[in-house]
């Protein structure tokens, strides 16, 4: 149905794609997998002819024997939305904030002259109902900000399929969504392919997603397709080393030595954290949101404790309370026998015992500071800067496997994975007993993530650290923790050893989470891990 022959692309002279060729059959799901920068999104944008300025494409993109690269811009406008629809990664920003959802879905029909305004709205209502947003629940006159991320992604799908295009391109459609929402959106897409007879080009970094969805898979690296085959064949054979490497990294299990002892290090007792909701109320009580309701748990010395939950469940709020950045409204947190106080009341020696690593490798560092000063910032918690300051910074760098001469450089000179190593070095420089890892590997590509997990396992064994590992990613939590807590809407619904929780979940929510997480079928996995 659509064939790409030798697609080569450069942007301002930099090569982005090299001789990409692939064929997507009618009513087929084609999975395109690769790490960031592999060129998978650019391939899709080239098919839509929506490339950034300065891009030059050569080769052929044939849609039913019409070469899209040879069409005029006006012909492409006529074709986009009608023959090929596309949805993007960020549901929060993909819809126009000042126009209603009904209006935005109807526009697809109107712009192609397929319906009058009135008819278009009727069809829009049908399409929205088809993607799971019936007008009686979600009226057409809602604005995007009134919907959740999953609902917005459904609206994006509705407007992309409004004219029943022959091909739908979905570029990381579920990456920004929670795991349960992801499962629903993937099921919706699969149903649409089956019912409407359209083809789906599913672009993702997640092998498990394509394993469950695609008929055919292509793996991309550095602008080239390294391997493509029918899905089962690709997973069972894995002819190319890169495919195998990607596969192994996504299941990476670091070598862990159990270091946990039964001495408690941190205990959280009936912690409550409320927020005042925005909007000043003149009359009556200010509305309050309970982000953390009555949470209790203990972390032992040398233990790795996982905290799993979907966005907005209160896990990051809890971590800020433990770090003494926000006050509790009830209960208490005790670290090594002393109670944690928020803000300036917290004694420095208590702060020294716990440090944190954040998710975003880009926002975690002041761009104007040198790496050595960034790593040395926690020295503020000592009465005086240590005399062997340089030595200790070098030690921290060595611990995380970074060259010791990088202290004089600025953070923009480092890659995402290197930055995360530097973030860990900053957390280690004071020799803390507890490190809170708040989605610390979530923003990394799988191969980098595997290396960081190895590093974390190694550091824990060598430096006798306790971890509080916060993540939405069940696979990662499984790989690095001894015990795990499952959090939902401010409460801990299940706690137990990692093996227990993953093998025999007790709470229905835990079961839903585990079921929703995409998995590569066990039979395909055995071939390599036996």
């Amino acid at each position: 149905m659509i064939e790409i022959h030798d697609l080569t692309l450069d942007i301002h002279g930099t090569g982005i794609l090299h001789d990409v060729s692939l064929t997507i059959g009618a009513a087929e799901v084609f999975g395109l997998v690769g790490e960031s920068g592999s060129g998978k999104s650019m391939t899709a944008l080239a098919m839509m002819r929506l490339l950034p300025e300065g891009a030059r494409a050569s080769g052929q993109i044939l849609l039913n024997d019409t070469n899209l690269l040879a069409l005029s811009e006006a012909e492409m406008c006529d074709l986009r939305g009608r023959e090929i629809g596309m949805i993007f990664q960020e549901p929060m920003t993909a819809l126009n904030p000042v126009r209603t959802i009904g209006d935005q879905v109807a526009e697809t029909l109107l712009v192609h002259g397929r319906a009058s305004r009135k008819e278009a709205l009727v069809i829009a209502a049908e399409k929205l109902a088809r993607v799971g947003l019936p007008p009686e629940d979600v009226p057409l006159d809602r604005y995007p900000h009134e919907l959740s991320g999953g609902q917005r992604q459904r609206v994006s799908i509705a407007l992309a399929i409004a004219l029943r295009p022959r091909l739908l391109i979905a570029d990381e459609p579920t990456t920004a969504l929670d795991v349960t929402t992801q499962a629903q959106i993937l099921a919706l897409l699969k149903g649409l392919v089956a019912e409407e007879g359209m083809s789906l080009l599913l672009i993702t970094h997640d092998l498990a997603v394509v394993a469950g969805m695609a008929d055919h898979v292509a793996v991309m690296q550095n602008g080239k397709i390294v391997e493509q085959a029918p899905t089962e064949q690709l997973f069972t054979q894995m002819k190319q080393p890169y495919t195998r490497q990607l596969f192994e990294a996504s299941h990476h299990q670091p070598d862990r030595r159990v270091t946990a002892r039964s001495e408690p290090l941190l205990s959280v007792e009936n912690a409550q954290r409320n927020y005042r909701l925005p909007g000043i109320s003149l009359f009556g009580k200010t509305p309050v949101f309970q982000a953390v309701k009555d949470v209790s748990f203990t972390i032992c010395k040398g233990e790795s404790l996982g905290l799993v939950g979907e966005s907005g469940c209160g896990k990051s709020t809890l971590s800020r309370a433990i770090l003494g950045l926000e006050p509790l409204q009830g209960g208490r947190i005790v670290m090594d026998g002393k109670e944690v106080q928020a803000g300036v009341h917290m004694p420095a020696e208590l702060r020294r015992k716990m440090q944190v690593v954040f998710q975003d490798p880009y926002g975690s560092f002041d761009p104007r500071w040198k790496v050595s000063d960034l790593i040395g910032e926690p020295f503020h918690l000592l009465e005086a800067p240590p005399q062997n300051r340089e030595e200790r910074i070098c030690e921290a760098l060595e611990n995380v496997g970074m060259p010791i001469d990088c202290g004089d450089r600025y953070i923009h000179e480092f890659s995402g994975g290197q930055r995360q190593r530097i973030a860990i070095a900053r957390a280690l420089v004071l020799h803390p007993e507890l490190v809170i890892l708040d989605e610390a590997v979530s923003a990394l590509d799988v191969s980098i993530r595997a290396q960081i997990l190895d590093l974390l396992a190694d550091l824990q064994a060598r430096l006798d650290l306790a971890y509080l590992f916060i993540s939405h990613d069940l696979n990662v939590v499984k790989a690095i923790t001894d015990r795990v807590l499952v959090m939902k809407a401010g409460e801990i619904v299940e706690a137990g050893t990692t093996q227990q929780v993953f093998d025999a979940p007790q709470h229905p929510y835990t079961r839903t989470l585990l079921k929703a997480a995409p998995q590569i079928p066990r039979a395909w996995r055995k071939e390599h891990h036996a």
Partner: protein
Amino acid sequence: MKLPLQLWIGFGLFAFFVLAVLLSFFWTPFDVTVLDISEKLLPPSSRHLLGTDHFGRDMLSMLMVGARTSIAVAIIAVGIGVAAGVPLGLLAAANRGSLLDEIIMRGNDLVFAFPSLVIAILITAVFGPSAVNAILAIGIFNIPVFARVTRGAALSLWTLDYIMAARVAGKRALRISLEHILPNIANVLIVQGTIQFSLGILAEAGLSYVGLGAQPPTPSWGRMLADAQTMIYTTPRLAILPGLAIVLAVLGLNLMGDGLRDFLDPRLRRARQ
């Protein structure tokens, strides 16, 4: 690194006026305090490059000395705005959502409701006209401008993880504001500073023109325009020259501001590298 062309042009124009001001303290072609009616309204010549005014004063010398008033008033007004506005903005951002933040922001709104002309009118009604009025009026108007810009830029930084890391390192809001926030919003403030500088020159000219700013005999571009107005039918040169001086000075500052913004914007800089 290559500097953008408009930055060069803007900087060149601005430097030209600064040099003229500095020179005027040591030397001007003629003494502007001496009136010589026999020399009045002379057209441009090799003796008087830009001619003379209705009191026989050399126009070039008048423009050089007049630039002092304009630039001094605008610089001090920016200084007042930065000195009061930036700390207020940092304070409001560090305590976002608090009562203090609310008070600072509402205070800003209140001052914003008084255009600098109105402030000048009020001050003049109390103390009588002088160049100091213009400085105060423009300076007070600058305070909420800098407070808002500072707060807005600081707020977006406060959400970043490196601020959180500094808090985990036990640093207090004041220290974080000085060590992390201020250096990272400096470029925004520099750009705003050049914009307020150029607006200050325009405002000073307007105030002096209506008699609320510099008083005779202090030459200022606005006063020269006011004096020239009655002679616009006969000697338009007297009105055109000070106006051109204002346009070139303001244009220079604006080009410099735009150039600096492009140059300092990290997004654009990354694209250049």
